[in-house]
C-alpha cells in the first residue's frame, strides 16, 4: 500500500443488507475473512449466518465493476443450542471464520461459534441429471405400471448453483468459549483456542483432539489470566502464538513437547509504573494477534494501541501505534458502559507495510510502517457514496485546538464500533464490518493501474 493511506481509497461496494432502518441483533457482523487468493470474502454474523462474496471478474464494458464483490452464497452455519447438562444457552454467533487453502475446484472454510467448529464445502454445480426412470421432470414419483422400459439418465446443463454442504463437525472439545481458530501450514491440522485451553485437531478427524495448551489452574480462584487469541505461524508448522488478557504473547514450539504449557518465547512489555491505574490491566489485554505474511513479525491490538513485535525481540514491541489515545481520559465512562471490554481486531496488508485496525464512531485507522504516517477513515453510509473517495477524519482531543471537520471526543458514537476488519492477501482491498454493514474499499490508484 505505502502511498495509499493518503491516496484515499474509494468506496466500491455498499452495505449488503437491505435498507433496514432498524438493526436486528442477528444482523450484526461478527467476523470478516478473505480467502487465500482474495477472490472470496466471508462474513459471519450474530445470527449464525455466513455470507460469502465473490469478486467479479474483469469486464471490458463496465470498467468500474472490476473487483466488485457480490454475494456468492449465504448459508446458516450455526443454530442456537442448549446445553442440558450445564443449563447453558449456546449462542449461534459466528466467532471466527478461517478458509482452508484451496485443494480442488471447491472451497472449504471453518466456522465456529462458542463451542462447535464446522467445516463447510462451497462448490458449484452446473449440470443436473434428467430422464430418471422412476421420477418425472418435476421430481414426482411415476406410477410404476407406466414404466415400460429402462433408460439411462443424462446430464443437462443448468444455471450455475452454489452449494454449501457441511463436511465435518468438531464438537464437545471446549469447556469455555472458543475465541480463535487457525489452520496449520501443514494443511492437515488446525487449532482452536478457548479461554483456558488450546486444542489441536486433524481436519479429517472429528472425534478427538489433542490438548496442546492448558492454563487452567488446579483451583479456579488462582486464575489470573485467560487466552484471548491464538494463531499458527504462516510457514513453520511447529510454531504458534497465543495472547493473554495480561498483555503478554507466548510463542510455543510444538517440536519440543506434546503439551506446550512451557512457552519458548514470552513477549512482554515492561509496565510503566507511572502510568499505572485501575484500568491498566484491562486496557493491556490483547484482543487480537496476527502473524505478518512473512512470519517475521507479530501484530497485536490492545484497547488503546496496536503493536508490532519482532519475533526475535521479546523485551518490547518494535513499533507502537496509538489508535485512539484521546480515550485515555475517558476510560472511566468506557468502563461503565462496558466498551472497555470491546475486542478490536487488527490486520496486515499484503506486503506487511501497513496495518489496519478499528475504532469507535465507525472510524478505522491505518498506519504506514515505513513513512510512519497514519490516517483515520470512516465507514458509514452518510459519508461515503459508492465509488466516492474517502476523506480522512480527525478526532480532536478534549481541550485541543479544533479544526474544521474535526470531531470532538465527546461527540463520538461508542455504539458504532468497527471491531472486525480484513485486508485482501495481495491487493489493496479492505473489508470493514460496521455493525450490520459490510464496506469494501479499494485503493483507487491500484485499480487504475490494472
Amino acid at each position: 500500500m505505502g502511498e495509499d493511506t493518503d491516496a484515499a481509497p474509494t468506496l466500491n461496494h455498499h452495505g449488503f443488507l437491505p435498507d433496514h432502518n432498524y438493526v436486528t441483533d442477528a444482523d450484526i457482523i461478527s467476523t470478516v475473512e478473505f480467502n487465500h487468493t482474495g477472490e472470496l470474502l466471508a462474513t459471519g454474523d450474530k445470527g449464525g449466518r455466513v455470507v460469502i462474496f465473490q469478486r467479479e471478474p474483469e469486464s471490458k464494458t463496465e470498467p468500474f465493476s472490476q473487483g466488485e464483490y457480490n454475494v456468492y452464497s449465504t448459508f446458516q452455519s450455526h443454530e442456537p443450542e442448549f446445553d442440558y447438562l450445564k443449563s447453558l444457552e449456546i449462542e449461534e454467533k459466528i466467532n471466527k471464520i478461517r478458509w482452508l487453502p484451496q485443494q480442488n475446484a471447491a472451497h472449504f472454510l471453518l466456522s465456529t461459534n462458542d463451542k462447535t467448529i464446522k467445516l463447510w464445502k462451497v462448490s458449484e454445480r452446473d449440470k443436473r441429471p434428467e430422464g430418471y426412470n422412476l421420477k418425472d421432470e418435476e421430481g414426482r414419483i411415476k406410477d410404476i405400471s407406466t414404466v415400460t422400459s429402462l433408460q439411462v439418465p443424462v446430464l443437462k446443463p443448468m444455471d450455475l448453483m452454489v452449494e454449501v454442504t457441511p463436511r465435518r463437525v468438531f464438537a464437545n472439545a471446549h469447556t469455555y468459549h472458543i475465541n480463535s481458530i487457525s489452520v496449520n501450514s501443514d494443511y492437515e491440522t488446525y487449532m482452536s483456542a478457548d479461554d483456558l485451553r488450546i486444542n489441536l485437531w486433524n481436519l479429517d478427524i472429528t472425534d478427538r483432539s489433542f490438548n496442546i495448551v492448558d492454563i487452567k489452574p488446579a483451583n479456579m480462584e488462582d486464575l489470573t489470566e485467560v487466552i484471548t487469541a491464538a494463531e499458527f505461524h504462516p510457514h513453520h508448522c511447529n510454531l504458534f502464538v497465543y495472547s493473554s488478557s495480561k498483555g503478554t504473547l507466548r510463542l510455543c514450539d510444538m517440536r519440543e513437547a506434546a503439551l506446550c504449557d512451557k512457552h519458548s518465547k514470552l513477549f512482554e512489555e515492561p509496565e510503566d509504573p507511572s502510568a499505572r491505574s485501575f484500568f491498566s490491566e484491562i486496557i493491556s489485554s490483547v484482543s487480537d494477534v496476527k502473524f505478518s505474511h512473512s512470519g517475521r513479525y507479530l501484530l497485536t491490538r490492545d484497547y488503546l494501541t496496536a503493536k508490532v513485535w519482532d519475533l526475535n525481540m521479546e523485551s518490547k514491541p518494535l513499533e507502537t501505534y496509538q489508535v485512539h489515545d484521546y480515550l485515555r481520559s475517558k476510560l472511566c465512562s468506557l468502563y461503565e458502559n462496558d466498551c472497555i471490554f470491546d475486542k478490536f481486531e487488527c490486520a496486515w496488508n499484503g506486503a506487511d507495510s501497513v496495518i489496519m485496525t478499528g475504532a469507535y464512531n465507525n472510524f478505522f485507522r491505518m498506519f504506514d510502517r515505513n513513512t510512519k504516517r497514519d490516517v483515520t477513515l470512516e465507514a458509514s453510509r452518510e459519508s461515503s457514496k459508492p465509488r466516492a473517495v474517502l476523506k480522512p477524519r480527525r478526532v480532536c482531543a478534549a481541550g485541543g485546538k479544533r479544526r474544521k471537520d474535526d470531531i470532538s471526543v465527546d461527540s463520538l458514537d461508542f455504539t458504532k464500533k468497527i471491531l472486525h476488519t480484513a485486508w485482501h492477501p495481495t491487493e489493496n482491498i479492505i473489508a470493514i464490518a460496521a455493525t450490520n454493514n459490510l464496506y469494501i474499499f479499494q485503493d483507487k490508484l491500484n485499480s487504475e493501474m490494472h
Partner: protein
Amino acid sequence: SSQQHQEAVHHCASSRCGEDSHGKLYKNDTETQLYSLKMYSIIHIFYNTIYDEDEVLLALAEQLGNFTMLVGGPEYVHCLLPPLESLATVEETVVRDKAVESLRKISQEHSPVDLEVHFEPLVKRLASGDWFTSRTSACGLFSVCYPRVSSTVKAEIRQHFRTLCSDDTPMVRRAAASKLGEFAKVLEPEYVKSDIISLFTALASDEQDSVRLLAVEACVSIATLLPQEDLETLVMPTLRQAAEDKSWRVRYMVADKFSELQKAVGSEITKNDLVPAFQNLLKDCEAEVRAAAANKVKEFCENLPEDNREQIIMTHILPCVKELVSDTNQHVKSALASVIMGLSTILGKDNTIEHLLPLFLAQLKDECPEVRLNIISNLDCVNEVIGIRQLSQSLLPAIVELAEDAKWRVRLAIIEYMPLLAGQLGVEFFDEKLNTLCMAWLIDHVYAIREAATCNLMKLVEKFGAEWAQNTIVPKVLGMANDPNYLHRMTTLFCINALSEACGQEITTKQMLPVVLKMSNDQVANVRFNVAKSLQKIGPVLDSNALQTEVKPVLEKLATDSDMDVKYFAQEAISGMFDFLLSTKLLNFNSLNFIFLLFFLCSFGPSITIPNQRLQDGICHGTLSNQTLKVIACLSQLHTFTSSAASSFVLCGKNTK
C-alpha cells in the same frame, strides 16, 4: 470432466475397432461395446448425481474396482479409469484412498499394452494435476505400474515421483514419503541407490515435521533393500539424525518403529548404533517418546543378537529401565509395566530375582493403578521363570488395594484378572487370601462390579471344579438370598444363572433350585421376575422331572402375578423353555421324548403361545412316518396349534406317504 468422459468413450470405441480387425466376432463385440458404454454412462450419471454423498462415493470407488467383468472383461477394463480418476481427485481422503486402491487393483487386469496406453497416462495426468488431491493420489499408483512398463516409461515415472517428492504442498510430500518404501521395492537396485536415497535424505530433512516422520517409515523398507555394506553410508546418517530430531513427533516415530528398524539394519548396526539411540529415546525429554520407547523394551531386547544379549541388557538397557520405573509420567510407567515382565524370560531366573524383582515390586506399589494392573496382568511371564511365590507377599496388598480402589473401573479391571491370578496362585492361596475379596465384590454398590463378580465366580468354578464351588461359593451365594437388600437377593439369582451350568445338574437341582423357587414369593417384583428369568436360564440344567413337578407350577403361578413385568417374564420363560426343548430334543429325534414334550406342551393348555415355527420345523425335520398317528393324537389336544403348522404337518404327512 464431461469432456474427459467423451474422450474416454471415443477411446473405448477406437480400441474396439482395432480388436475387430484381429478377427473377433463383430456382433458380440458391438454388444459388449454398447454394454460397456451404457455401463459407463450409468457410472457417470451416478457419480454426478450423488457426488456429495461421501458414503455413496466411497462405495462407488470400492465397487468400481470389482467391475472388470461387468464392463466386458480385462480388455475393456480401461473404461473404468475415467470415473476412478475423478474419484481419485475428490477432497474426501477416504474416497480418494479407496479410488486409488481400486485403481491399483484394476491396474493388474490391464495388459502391458493397455497399461501404457491407458493407465500410465492417467497416472501422469494425476501427477501433474493442478490440485494436490490428484497429485497425492498419483503417489500411490507409481509402484503398481512401474514393474510392467517399458524402460522409457519407467524413466518418466521415476521423474514424476522425484517431482512429487519436492512438491510445494506438504500434503503431496507426505503422500510421496509414505509411498517411498513401497516404490523403492519395485525399483531396480541401481535406482534405489541413485534415486531413492537422495529422495529419502531430502524428505527426512523436510521442513515439515509431518513429512520427516513419514520418512522414518520408509527407512525400514529402504534398509531391507540395501546390502549391509551400504547401510552405514546411505541410511544410517539419516536415521541417526531422525533419532535426534528437534521435533518430538519424529523421535516418537523412531521409537514406535524401533523393532522394525532393528530387524532391517541387522545386528552389527544394532549393537553399535541402535543401542545408544534406544537409550536416548528411553531418556527422552518428551514423555510421549519415552512411553513409545518403553513399549518396545521387551521386543528390542528379544531381538538383540544372542551372543551378547544379556550383557547389553544388563549394562545398557536395564539402567534406563530402572529410571523409568520411577518416571514422573504415568503413561510411561504403565507402558513399561505392560512389557517389563517379559524381560524375565530373556534374562533368566537369577537375574530376574536380583534385578527385575525389585522393579516389579516397586511397580506393584506404584501410585497409579494402571501400572499395578499392567504388572498383575502379565504375571504369567514371571510365573514361568521364578514362580509366583516370590511375588505373592507383595502381590496380595497390591491386589487388595486395587480391589478396594475408589474408581470402579479399576475394580472392574482387577476382577477381570482374578481367574488368571487364581490359576497361577493355586486354590489354597486363593481360598486363604482372595476368596473374601471375590465375595465382597458381589455386594459392591456399582452394578457393573456385581455383574463382573458373578462372571468371575463362573470362571473360578470352571477352573477349580464343582466340588470346590459346593464347599466355598454356593453356600455364601445362597446365603445372600435372605439379605434385606433386594439388590443383593437379585445378585444371588444372577450368580445362580452364571453358576448352574458349571456346577452341574445335581448341585443346581438340589441346592440352587429350592432357593430360586422360594424367592418366587419375594415381595419385590424385580426379584420375582428375575426368578422367572433364572428358571428359564437354569431349565436346561435341570432334569425333566424337576421341570415338570417344581418349575412348572411356580412359573404358572408367576404367570398370573399381579405385576405386569412378572407376568411377562414368566410367560417368556414358559415359551422360552419350549423353545429350548424343541430345539435340542428334536434335533436328536427320539419318538418318546418328542411325545413327552408334546404332552408337556399340551398340559399348559391354551394360555401358552407355542412357537409355531419351531414346531413346524420339528415336524418337517423329524422322520415322522411311523410316528404320525401318535403325533396327530398329541397335536389334536393343542388348542393353539395354528393352521400354518397344521398345513405343514399335512404336507409333511403327504411326503412321507
